[in-house]
């Protein structure tokens, strides 16, 4: 079992956990947390591949990870803003309650 495989398995586990959280929690914010976890699993994969890949000096994987971190930050900001607005509007963050498009 190579170290890379280990990292990949951890990443997969994280991804699965995040997905489970996103799929099972009711609170929209926690769904977002799950999504963040999935993103981070992806980052871990990127870094691991960069580290054990053929050309680490090109930095592709790390750059990818850094950019995805930035994108994740943006995503979190917008997502949470949406959640807050929804809460103001519907006074709930329960996803089971939020199943209508009409206000």
């Amino acid at each position, binding site marked *: 079992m190579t170290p890379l495989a280990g990292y990949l398995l951890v990443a997969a586990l994280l991804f699965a956990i995040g997905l489970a959280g996103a799929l099972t929690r009711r609170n929209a914010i926690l769904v977002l947390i799950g999504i963040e976890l999935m993103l981070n699993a992806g980052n871990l994969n990127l870094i691991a591949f960069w580290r054990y890949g053929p050309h680490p000096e090109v930095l592709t994987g790390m750059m990818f990870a850094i950019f995805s971190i*930035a994108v994740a930050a943006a995503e*979190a900001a917008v997502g949470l803003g949406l959640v807050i607005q929804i*809460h103001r509007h519907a006074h709930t963050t329960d996803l089971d309650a939020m199943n209508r498009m009409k206000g």
Partner: protein
Amino acid sequence: MSFVFYILSALTVAGALAAVLLKNTVHCALALTVAFAGLALLFLDLHAQFAGFAQILVYIGAVAILVVFAILLTKGSETPKDGVFSKTWLAGLAVAAAVFAVLGWAVLQSTSRLPQDVKAPTVTVQQIGQSLVGRYVLPLEIVAVLLTAAMIGAVIIALHEKEGLQ
């Protein structure tokens, strides 16, 4: 497979599990930060110093705080009466398990083809900076634009309907 790796991955996975399973939302957020920290340490373990610090700075310094703010603003800190898991949690769990099974299967399938332990690459911040403004300058610009747009968008979204508040 170093000893450190096991510790860190255990910490990370534990944090993630806690973040998903805990009842109290704020606890979830704090556990999430633990997971983030574990990930950052994993990055350091992978000699990705810069990425690790960036991870801490962005996720623990910004995203976690954002989440916390959001929780408090949506009064989500108190746990709801009727369970924190949706009615269809079983299906979700099954799906997640399936995903993990497939991914794990894929990894194990290809483990023979994965490269063995190669010597750690040494990258200085200098190199990262140069490639950021050199080879990857276009993505950098795009990300900059994206962040600006996201900031404005978030502000617009989160702004009150009523004017004159900050």
